[in-house]
C-alpha cells in the first residue's frame, strides 16, 4: 500500500477535525505514522501537506475517531450462514466502525475462555474492526448459574451480558451484579421481562391489535429497568441497559442517574429513527427486539440521547437469514442489521436539529468506549490510528441488497439517509474507501 512507500506516514489535510473526547471541532489535520496517530490538531497542515508523507485531502469533510459499536451479534461461531466475523468486519468498515463489542450468544456461547480467545484471534487475523467480546453472565445463557466472569475478564471479555436474553431471575441478577462488582465489571442487561414478552411479536397496542399480533408491552422493559436499578443500588455493582426503547425506561434511568446510581444505557437507531408504524403490513425486517414503539416513545428516546441520559448509540446489529425473516410475522426472527446504517441514521439527530454534531459523535465514539472500559474512540498522539472520514451532507438511500452484511435484514431498507463514510482507517490502514474501491 502507498503508506509503506512513505515510511508509513499519511497526512490527512484540509479536514474538519472532530474529537468528542477532547472537544475539538475545528479545521485541522492529522498525521499517522504506521499504526498510530503521530500528530493532530486544529490548524495542523494549514500551510500545506508535509514532506515525505502520503497526503489525503479530506476536502473539508469530517475526520473523527472510528465508531465504537458496543452491541453487535456476530453469529460466528455457530451460525455462519447468517453472518461471520469477516462479513461483519467488512460491513463495519463500510459503516465507519473500527471497534465492535460482540454479544456472547454464539454457539458455543462465550462463557469460557477458549471462545473469548477464538473470537479475538479470528478478528485479529482479519485485521478489520477490532472485536472485543462480552462474556456471558450465566453459563450457557441459561439464567441460572454464574459464568466464570473473573476468568473471562482476564481473558479479555470487557463486560458481561446474557445477550438478547434478560437475566430474569432477580436473585441471579443480584448475585451477578454483586459478583461482578468484586472485579469492577459491568453487567449489561437486555431489559425485557420474559414472561410479559413471551409470545409477543411487536409492541403491544393499537397497531398490534389491528394486525392481530400478540403484543410486547412497554412495561416489560421498565419493570426490569426499575428492578435492576434497585438491585444495583443494593449491591453496589455497575449496570448497563442495552437498547432502551421506551419513555418510561428512559425516565427511570434519568431519575436513577440523578440520585447517583451507577447505571448507563444505550439505544439503537431504530428506536430513535423509527416507530411501530414501520411494521406496516407485516414487514418482518421491522420485527425487532425490543419491538419498535409508538411515536411518543421514539421522541422520549431522542430526548434521552439529547440530555445524556442515554450514554451511547449502538447498532444492535442482528443478522438473520432470509429463511428466518421470510415467514409469517409472528414466526419470523427478531432483529435487524445495523452496522452500515449506524452513522448515517444517527446523523439524523444532527440534521434534524436535535443535537450538535460533536454530541452525536460522542455517543458513537468515546461515549460507548468508556462504558466498556476501552481507550478507543478518541484521538490521541501515540494512540491507534482508527479513523473515519465522512461526508456529513451526502444523501443516499439504504438498499438492503447493496449492504455488505451477509444477511440483508435492515429495518432501514428503502430509507433516505444523509451522511456517507468516505474512508475508514484501522491501525493506520485504510480498510474501506467509498466509491467501490473496498480495500481488503
Amino acid at each position, binding site marked *: 500500500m502507498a503508506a509503506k512507500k512513505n515510511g508509513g506516514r499519511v497526512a490527512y489535510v484540509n479536514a474538519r477535525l472532530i474529537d468528542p473526547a477532547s472537544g475539538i471541532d475545528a479545521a485541522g489535520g492529522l498525521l499517522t505514522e504506521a499504526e498510530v496517530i503521530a500528530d493532530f490538531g486544529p490548524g495542523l497542515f494549514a500551510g500545506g501537506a508535509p514532506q515525505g508523507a502520503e497526503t489525503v485531502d479530506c476536502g473539508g469533510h469530517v475526520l473523527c475517531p472510528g465508531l465504537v459499536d458496543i452491541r453487535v451479534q456476530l453469529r460466528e461461531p455457530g451460525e455462519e450462514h447468517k453472518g461471520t466475523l469477516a462479513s461483519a468486519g467488512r460491513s463495519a468498515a463500510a459503516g465507519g466502525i473500527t471497534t465492535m463489542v460482540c454479544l456472547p450468544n454464539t454457539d458455543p456461547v462465550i462463557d469460557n475462555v477458549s471462545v473469548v480467545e477464538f473470537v479475538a484471534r479470528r478478528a485479529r487475523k482479519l485485521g478489520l474492526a477490532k472485536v472485543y467480546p462480552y462474556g456471558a453472565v450465566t*453459563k450457557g445463557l441459561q439464567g*441460572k*448459574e*454464574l*459464568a*466464570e*466472569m*473473573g*476468568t473471562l475478564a482476564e481473558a479479555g471479555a470487557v463486560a458481561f451480558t446474557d445477550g438478547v436474553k434478560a437475566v430474569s431471575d432477580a*436473585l*441471579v441478577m443480584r*448475585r451477578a451484579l*454483586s*459478583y461482578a*462488582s*468484586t*472485579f*469492577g465489571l459491568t453487567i449489561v442487561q437486555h431489559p425485557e421481562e420474559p414472561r410479559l414478552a413471551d409470545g409477543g411479536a411487536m409492541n403491544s397496542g393499537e397497531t398490534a391489535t389491528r394486525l392481530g399480533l400478540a403484543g410486547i408491552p412497554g412495561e416489560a422493559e421498565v419493570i426490569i429497568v426499575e428492578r435492576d436499578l434497585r438491585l444495583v443500588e*443494593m*449491591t*453496589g*455493582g455497575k449496570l448497563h441497559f442495552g437498547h432502551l426503547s421506551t419513555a418510561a425506561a428512559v425516565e427511570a434511568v434519568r431519575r436513577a442517574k440523578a440520585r447517583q446510581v451507577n447505571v448507563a444505557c444505550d439505544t439503537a437507531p431504530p428506536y430513535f429513527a423509527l416507530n411501530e408504524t414501520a411494521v406496516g403490513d407485516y414487514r418482518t425486517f421491522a420485527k425487532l427486539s425490543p419491538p419498535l414503539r409508538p411515536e411518543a416513545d421514539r421522541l422520549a428516546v431522542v430526548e434521552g440521547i439529547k440530555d445524556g441520559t442515554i450514554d451511547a448509540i449502538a447498532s444492535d446489529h442482528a443478522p438473520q437469514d432470509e429463511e428466518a425473516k421470510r415467514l409469517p410475522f409472528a414466526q419470523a426472527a427478531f432483529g435487524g442489521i445495523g452496522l452500515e446504517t449506524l452513522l448515517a441514521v444517527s446523523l439524523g439527530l444532527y440534521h434534524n436539529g436535535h443535537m450538535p454534531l460533536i454530541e452525536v459523535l460522542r455517543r458513537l465514539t468515546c461515549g460507548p468506549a468508556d462504558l466498556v472500559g476501552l481507550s478507543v474512540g478518541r484521538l490521541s498522539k501515540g494512540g491507534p490510528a482508527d479513523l473515519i472520514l465522512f461526508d456529513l451532507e451526502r444523501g443516499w438511500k439504504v438498499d438492503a441488497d447493496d449492504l455488505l452484511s451477509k444477511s440483508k435484514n435492515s429495518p432501514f431498507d428503502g430509507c433516505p439517509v444523509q451522511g456517507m463514510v468516505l474512508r475508514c482507517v484501522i491501525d493506520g490502514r485504510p480498510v474501506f474507501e467509498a466509491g467501490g474501491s473496498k480495500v481488503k
Partner: protein
Amino acid sequence: MNAAVPDNVHFPHRHLLGIEGLSPDEITILLDRSEAFVEQNRRADKTKLVLHGRTIINLFFEASTRTRTSFELAGMRLGGDVINMPVTTSSIKKGETLIDTAMTLNAMHPDVLVVRHPYSGAVKLLSEKVNCAVINGGDGSHEHPTQALLDALTIRRRIGGLAGLRVAISGDIVHSRVARSNIHLLTTMGATVRLIAPRTLIPPAIEKLGVEVFDDMREGLRDCDIVMMLRLQTERMQGNFFPSISEYFHFFGLDYEKLSNAKPDALIMHPGPMNRGVEIDSEVADDIGRSVIREQVEMGVAVRMACLETLSRNLDDGDADGG
C-alpha cells in the same frame, strides 16, 4: 499473662452465647484462664477435678466432630459427667421441638449445656428456657464464640498480643459464624480486621462491624500479620454464589504467590475442616513454619475447659431459680 489470673476475677455472664457484647477484660479473663489449661493438657495427667459432680450435655443439632470432641474432652478433663446428645436435623425443623427438648433436658438438672444449632439465634432461644449455663457451640451463621477464643489464644501465644495486629479473614464470610465471632473479638481487642471474598460472599453492611472489605486478595493480604481462611459452606448456600471452584481458587484460594503480600512471618489459620485446593493450597496448609492450624485444635480444648470452668463458677450450688 500466664495463669497468674486471680481466681476471684468475676466473669459476669451466666451463658456464653457470643463474643458480641463481651468487654476486652472479659475476653482476657477467658484467655488467661485458658493458658493454664494448655499446660495441663500437655501433661500425662490432664485432669483437674473442678467440675466433679457437674453434668455437661453436648446438644448438637448439627453434625460436628471437632467441636463436639473438643468439648467432650474439656468436660472430662475437668472431672465433669459428659453426655453427648446428637439430634438429627429432621427432628428440629419445628421450633416447638427445640423448646420441648430444652424443657426435657432441663428437668434432668444439667449444669452446662453446650449447644450447636443450624439456625442463628436458636441457642439463645434455648438458653431462655433452661436453668443451667449454656455455651454456644455454633448457631447458624451467627456466632461460634469458643472458636474465636481459641483463635485469639493461638495468636496471643504466638505473637504475644492482639492489639494492633492486622488480620485478614478470607472466604465464605456471609455464611460464617466463625467470621462474625472473630470480627467481634479481634476488633474488641484492638486488632484491625480485613475481609476478603467475592462480593456475593460478603454480607451487606458488614463495614458497620468495623471491618474493611477487599475485593482483591493480594491487596487485602498486604502487610497482614494473620491470615484466617474460611471454608466455603456449600451446605448453607441457597443457589449460586460464585461460578466455579476453579475460579474461586484462582482469585481467592490462598497460595504462596498471594500469601507473599502478607508479612513474611504471617500466621495462617483455618477453623477446619479444610477444603484443599478450594480456599487453601495444600502446601500452604501444611507449611509448618506458617500454618498454626493444628495448634488451633489444641487450643480449642484449653479454651473450652476455661469456658466450662468459668461458667460453672457462676452456677448456684444447689438447684435454685430459673434464668
